[in-house]
């Protein structure tokens, strides 16, 4: 396969011919505590760490190389708390991909994901947005409250993609991001100009030269 997961350094093939980098806006929605931030951390840093609840929203980036194109995911990890509800449209408006995350060991969060879905369908999203239902905490099999079938059939009914993940073990996390990347290319990328091109700004460049790069952690700029 000519595509690589984020952590693999670029192969000579991609280095030889410059590839376009397109910006993809992705939003993580769902109740607080379902593991949105943990998933975001897995997407971007390949690690699991316990962190405190998200305040407002966190912004992270990650680059995914596909055969034809490089995608720069700009990930908006929302807090999911009710008090921030009024600002959430900021984050899903214009999103190319939305992950609706729930916790398989907590049925309320599954219901809550459907509320988010209704809001998305009603309000802002065009048909070209990739909607993905994500059942996280797949490692908590013994405490499962929502079966995989239930998730899958909701997804089928509403035209969503579906994956169960574990941000804890990392299971299916890379596959999820890659899957989203492909679908975004298919659904959104087909429309000419739907994705804008990413241009490295000069000051980021300068940081590279100085060996001091405060952004390196969250923004691995592709080769």
């Amino acid at each position, binding site marked *: 396969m000519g595509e690589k997961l984020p952590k693999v350094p670029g192969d000579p093939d991609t280095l030889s011919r410059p590839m376009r980098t397109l910006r993809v806006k992705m939003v993580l929605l769902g109740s*607080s505590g379902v593991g949105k*931030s943990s998933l*975001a*951390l897995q997407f*971007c*840093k390949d690690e699991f760490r316990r*962190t*405190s*609840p*998200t*305040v*407002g*929203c*966190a*912004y*992270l*980036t990650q680059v995914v190389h596909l055969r034809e194109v490089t995608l720069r995911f700009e*990930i908006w*990890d929302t*807090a999911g*708390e*009710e*008090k*921030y509800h009024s*600002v959430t449209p*900021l984050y899903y408006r214009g999103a190319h991909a939305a992950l609706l995350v729930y916790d398989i060991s907590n049925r309320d969060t599954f219901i809550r994901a459907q509320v988010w879905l209704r809001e998305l369908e009603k309000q802002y999203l065009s048909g070209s947005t990739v909607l993905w239902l994500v059942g996280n905490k797949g490692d908590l099999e013994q405490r499962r409250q929502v079966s995989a079938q239930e998730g899958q059939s909701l997804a089928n009914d509403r035209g969503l993609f579906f994956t169960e993940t574990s941000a804890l073990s990392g299971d299916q996390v890379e596959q999820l991001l890659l899957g989203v990347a492909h679908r975004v290319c298919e659904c959104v990328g087909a429309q000419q100009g739907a994705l804008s091109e990413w241009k490295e*700004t000069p*000051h*980021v460049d*300068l*940081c590279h030269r*100085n060996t*001091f790069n*405060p*952004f390196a*952690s*969250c923004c691995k700029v592709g080769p």
Partner: protein
Amino acid sequence: MEGDSQRASASWENGTLAPGEHLRSDRADSPLPGLVEGTEPGAGQKSAMFVHAQSFEDLTAEAEEEVRREAEINKSGDGEEELKVLVGEKEQHSSDMTSESRTKEEDVTSEAWRSHRKHVFVLSDAGKPIYTRYGTEEALSSTMGVMMALVSVVEAEKNIIRSIQADGCKVVFLTKSPLVLVGVSRTCQSDKELLRELHYIYYQIVSLLTLTQLNNIFKNKQNYDLRRLLAGSEYLTDNLLTRLERDPGLLLSAVTCLPLASSTRDTVSSSLQAAKSKNLVFSILLAGDRLVTLLRKKDQFLHHIDLHLVFNLVGSSSSFREGEGWTPICLPKFNTAGFFHAHISYLEPASELCLILVSTDREDFFNMSDCKKRFMERLSKRSAYPALKEALKSPTYSVEQVGIPELRHFLYKSKSSGLYTSPEFPDVYKSDCEQERLMGLYQDLHSSLHHPTRPLRYVYRCGDTENLLAWVTSGFELYLCFSPLGTKALAVAAVTKLLKWIRKEEDRLFILSPLTY
């Protein structure tokens, strides 16, 4: 140096505190500097960074009239019986502890729960529980009911209930419609100090929601369960309460700085100054709980309470370490009606340095992100950045450096800048418990200096474990802790010596030339 004429002290509420020009020339060699505001060590050269820093008074001013009218209210009657329920008789409350949601699960009928030194409860006007420091609100609903009964009884009599004393406990009420805050304390803090703390809690809640939103919610639905909106943020209030016990800044209504060579600080400040943007109001660079620098829009002042709320937010959450944070925040002393939007990020993943960019526009994320990049770009081109990182290794200093043998610890606040300095706690006060005890002593002294009817300018207290001296002038506030072997004469001599030392070090310990965009 730019002209002294710009001194913003002239813009303080009534302008009378601005020092005369003649005093400013004495700056360097005055033997007892700073008896007048604006000339004390640590006073800024051009402009104040905060709204006028004497704000301990404006925190409690409303409360004071009442206190003056009747120092303590109505201890008898219905109140007393009900109070016993609150503060720890052996009666059992009915309680069903079903909720697993709070980690601070604790049986509210237990002895342990009753014996906490300080409880804080927040309820709505309608008596709905909103917050409790210990245990869960559900389990406490009967207790909350009792409190509401107390509040309504006294309000009906056209008294606003302030405080009740019983069984070694003091209960203090603060009504800030639509909220009622109640503190139950076994400490010997004054009403005023307890009220000050309740005010902080009130502002913490407002900063999450805005007062406008709070009012609207309760106007539409008197019975609203506010915990829904505060869910996930209780830890901010918990942490703020801990800070109130430990952080001298909250006591002094002041902020402390990272000790830093002034040339380095100036470079950092000017790099930040260059990274401006139309809607950017404040840029704040923190090293842990210490201020490295603060930039503000001309004519916009940050209040120290708002700054402490920002400190609390940043210090309480590790979530800003992942990527860049973007959150609505209300700065209640600035404006209770609206949200600012704060871009919060660390300069490097493992660094203590956290940059907070406060914008008026909720769609300003990428502009703020760009400001940060420009700041980093400038900073990394200069030697200031390594110097700043070096300074992080010694964020504090030991009292030995002052060279006064009997002196164990001190707090010094420059009133005009709203900044304070203090050495690290010496070994005798290293444990949490000893530290809180010393803070308690400082709070006592603070109460005496700020007593609503009989404020003292000067206090000296001898004790078995330490001697204390406190002194307030129009320029500064000073609290010193000496070994119990010292004498009063030594203590008084130490003040002069200490002030000289602070004057000598003020470049490093304070922000003397704050900038604006």
